[in-house]
């Protein structure tokens, strides 16, 4: 009955079972063990990261007064799939956007995901939020998510604080996964320099979702969840009152004020003018306001204290003399004759005065160019050098110790180096035929030498400290523990002995306090201010008015550099402004008759004529912040009334008396 061949068919059937079994197992092996594609898909199926945003760190001034704080704003979100037909016009009216924009945002959100919340309108103000929250139940699928934006109670220090903005794709890529689209990042100023400290840590909750997109609790019992950690607070070295007065004094002028506490290197005032209200750079109008500010011909976003290039001018002379003293080419009694000029070869450097025989103290007090040139000549023609080129490089290195010709390392981004060339540069430019006479302008801080206002103020800090400086910085303490970076407590010596400083300081004291001084407008009642004026020639119109100095003479508390562009003599604007600043800081207020002078100074307009009037600049205030109108937009009221121009000249005549 059962032939052998039919019995063998058992093996065909069993063989088929085994082959199919192996095919199934092989496929399973590929899906489960070999490929991790499905494992990853499973993860993205169920796991969503929900982020909670930390509040950004607060920034305080040196007396712990708030400079930058946070203010709640509200993003209108929607889950497109949950949105039911609703009164679009009414909703648009409440949140104050046009329906076209609203529709576009809603469609965009729907395109990104039908089930995930998408942002419909960003940064609604508290007022709009209140109006909206009453009505929100009428708009199913919409909800509001709160986050914080920056707010600046005093509207000061815009260049110092900088601003934050949504991250760009480039920054997201560079951050290796930290930033996500829609996050904010510091773009300039302290916000950028201390981004990692200020931003805090984003909190994350790993949530599991079921197939209907309903949350099902946290993943692994929250083992991988983190709470949002607020950013650390920063205590800045700024004195809010001083900063505010500085900004007011510089209103309608171009230039900067830098004040440093010499003993610590802490920057007390950091004024860059023209400035803007930092509150303009937050909120929904940020983009528009930014574009408007960019239109200002005087370049509002230049951070002049660390980016402006000015010849130091006469302000450089004390440094010159100090190197001379240290090198021993002069002593405090060395006398040179000033016929009203200094001649080397065919080149004549003019001097403002004919001072006759002149020594160190009076040379500085009178800001004698001839004296400075003689010192420079002596320095570069010392016997110990094989040639003047080597002597020059040696001199340059000594100058560089003072922080010139290189960045000082202030804690702000985009600091510029200034300009101080080496011998090789001149050898290239003049071939080998050059000597001290070729670069004699450097002796009086002119020519191919530029310094930032911060570098100039730092020179004063060195002199005030009698021989060293601490790197100037704007943040004196980070976080609750008041950490300070190590580099901001280290003393940097400039290689000049303390004993050489006294005669130079005498000269600077006389410049301010003696009848023959050039900086007598910077005198402060009851306080010995030491300083130097500079009247810096420049190619762009009138001379810049410069003053550098420190006060009081003994145990100095403040070192200053004030630059007012195109304002003429140093004594005209820079010197009085410096004196008000110092007085305000040292006495906490301006006394008596000088109060009126301060008010007068605040009203002065020293601006280059506007290039071409391009209509009225139109700035909408950030609608999420209340503008302090009294202080609003110094730079933006800039169009100069022609009748104010003559006043400046008259003032110049007045101050020259």
């Amino acid at each position, binding site marked *: 009955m059962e032939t052998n061949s039919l019995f063998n068919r058992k093996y065909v059937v069993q063989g088929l079972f085994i082959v199919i079994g192996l095919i199934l197992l092989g496929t*399973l092996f590929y899906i*489960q063990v070999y490929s991790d*594609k*499905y494992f990853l898909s499973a993860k993205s199926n169920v796991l969503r990261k929900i982020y909670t945003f930390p509040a950004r760190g607060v920034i305080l001034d040196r007396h712990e007064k708030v400079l930058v704080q946070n203010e709640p704003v509200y993003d209108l979100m929607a889950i497109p799939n949950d949105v039911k037909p609703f009164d679009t016009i009414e909703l648009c009216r409440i949140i104050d956007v046009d329906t076209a924009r609203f529709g576009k945002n809603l469609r965009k959100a729907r395109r990104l995901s039908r089930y995930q919340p998408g942002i419909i309108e960003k940064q609604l103000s508290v007022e709009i939020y209140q109006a909206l929250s009453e009505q929100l139940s009428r708009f199913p699928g919409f909800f509001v998510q709160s986050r914080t934006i920056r707010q600046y109670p005093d509207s000061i220090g815009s260049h110092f604080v900088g601003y934050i903005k949504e991250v760009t794709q480039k920054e997201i890529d560079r951050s290796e996964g930290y930033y996500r689209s829609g996050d904010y990042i510091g773009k300039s100023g302290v916000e950028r320099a201390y981004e990692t400290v200020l931003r805090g840590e984003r909190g994350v909750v790993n949530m599991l979702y*079921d197939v209907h997109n309903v949350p*099902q609790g946290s993943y692994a019992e929250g083992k991988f969840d983190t709470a949002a950690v607020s950013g650390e607070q920063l205590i800045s070295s700024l004195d809010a009152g001083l900063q505010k007065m500085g900004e007011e004094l510089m209103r309608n002028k171009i230039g900067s004020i830098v004040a440093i506490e010499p003993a610590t290197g802490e920057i007390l005032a950091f004024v860059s003018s023209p400035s803007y209200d930092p509150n303009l750079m937050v909120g929904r109008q940020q983009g528009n306001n930014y574009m408007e500010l960019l239109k200002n011909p005087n370049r509002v976003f230049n951070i002049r204290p660390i980016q402006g290039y000015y010849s130091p001018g006469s302000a450089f002379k004390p440094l010159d003399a100090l190197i001379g003293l240290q090198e021993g080419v002069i002593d405090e009694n060395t006398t040179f004759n000033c016929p009203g000029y200094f001649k080397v070869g065919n080149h004549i450097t003019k001097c403002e005065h004919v001072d006759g025989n002149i020594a160190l103290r009076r040379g500085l007090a009178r800001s004698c160019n001839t004296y400075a040139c003689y010192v420079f000549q002596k320095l570069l023609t010392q016997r110990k050098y094989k040639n003047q080129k080597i002597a020059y490089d040696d001199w340059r290195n000594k100058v560089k110790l003072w922080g010139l010709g290189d960045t000082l390392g202030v804690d702000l981004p985009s600091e510029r180096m200034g300009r101080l060339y080496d011998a090789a540069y001149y050898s290239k430019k003049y071939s080998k035929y050059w000597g001290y006479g070729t670069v004699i302008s450097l002796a009086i801080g002119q020519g191919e030498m530029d310094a930032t206002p911060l570098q100039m103020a730092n020179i004063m800090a060195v002199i005030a400290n009698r021989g060293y400086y601490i790197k100037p910085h704007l943040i004196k303490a980070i976080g609750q523990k008041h950490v300070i970076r190590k580099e901001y407590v280290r003393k940097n010596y400039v290689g000049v002995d303390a004993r050489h400083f006294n005669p130079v300081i005498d000269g600077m004291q006389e410049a301010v306090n003696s009848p023959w001084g050039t900086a007598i407008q910077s005198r402060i009642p009851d306080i010995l201010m030491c300083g130097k004026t500079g009247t810096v020639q420049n190619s762009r119109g009138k001379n810049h008015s410069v003053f550098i100095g420190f006060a009081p003479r003994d145990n100095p508390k403040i070192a200053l550099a004030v630059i007012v562009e195109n304002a003429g003599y140093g004594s005209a604007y820079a010197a009085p402004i410096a004196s008000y600043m110092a007085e305000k800081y040292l006495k906490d207020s301006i006394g008596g008759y000088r109060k009126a002078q301060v008010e007068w100074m605040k009203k002065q307009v020293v601006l280059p004529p506007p290039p071409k009037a391009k209509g009225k600049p139109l700035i909408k205030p950030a609608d999420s912040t209340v503008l302090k109108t009294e202080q609003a937009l110094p730079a933006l009221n800039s169009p100069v009334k022609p009748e104010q121009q003559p006043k400046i000249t008259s003032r110049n005549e007045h101050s020259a008396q």
Partner: protein
Amino acid sequence: MNTQHNNRFFFKVDWITILVYVLLCTVGFVNIYASVPSNSEQGALFDFGANYGKQLIFIVTGLILGFSILLLDAKFFSIFSPVVYGITLVLLVLVLVIGRNVGGNQAWIAIGSFRLQPSELAKVGTALLLARYVSTFNPKFRDSRSILTAALIVGIPLFLILRQPDAGSALVFLSFMFPMYREGLSGYFLLTFLGMIVLFVADFLVPSNVLIPVILMIGGFFVYSNRRKQKIMFSAIITTIVAIAYLFMVKFAYNNILKQHHRSRIEIILGLKTDPKGVGYNVIQSKIAIGSGQLTGRGFLQGTQTKYGYVPEQSTDFIFSTIGEEWGFVGCFVVIGLFIFLLLRLINMAERQRSSFSRVYGYSVACILFFHVFINIGMAIGIVPVIGIPLPFISYGGSSLWSFTVLLFIFLKLDSNRMGFI
């Protein structure tokens, strides 16, 4: 006397098969328990309102049913096979009239809260009658008459099931080709079916203007190489013509007879179309769940895809995705290993029968189970189109569990009685 008889009898029952059966039922229960959606928390083990509680009842009643079958006289099945077959045919007709339509298929007869699926019973009836036919007439399936008779026995329930229309269950009836093959049906029949499947797939993947010349060339080669043997040459010509005609028929049937959801499923399985949100969703989610199990699985009740309902029909047709996710490749290996072991053992048992009735029935049981296992798991891992048939002993559902139990235990009874006469 009677008890002694029973004792002797129970020793002859193949307990190893019963052990495998119980293991597979347990795997089913555990994984149905895990497949309960998370929003209704896993409660008490004996919550008879939940699927897993019901399945426990099905398993227990299934065991009672199975052991009752073992108590019946072995001759009963042979004698009453035409009656059983007749009843299933009546039920299959009845379901077309009064059946409940669930998910597009009119496959269920509701009796109170209990739902009966006649197509499941039809497998038992058909297997019994086919075995009876072979044992009575001893056909060798060499003549067209015996082949047609067998085809009729299988074809009538198959046709009725296609009317529901339940293509999956109907497909299972093709498994009766294997017992016929064992009894003498030419292997060419199996090869023809294999060829039809290959041509069917090729028809979709290769454009006609390439496929037809290729078939002509292959046919031409056979015709040329056998030009001296007229008979073979002739059949080669016929085969070529039939193959090409078949291609056109497939195209025609595909475009005019199949419904859109059939077409979509075929296109997705052949990789012609991707549709992650539509028909392909089941397969993609099932593959994700299985793939996420990796080597050792996420652990019992730890499968996120399972827990949060990402795989549709998880406790029934896609129960294998739960096994794959929570127990990993190791779990899959064990389950498939158990099935293959069971199938091979059933074939071996069938071969040790003295009566051809038992042998044919044993082959039928093994091959029906094989079709179910292959199609169900193959569908869960995306190598077979989505055809909704249950995984034997594991998928949730009383009707399927009981019919598989009955199917298996009848054979165990026959096997225990293998020395006797039927």
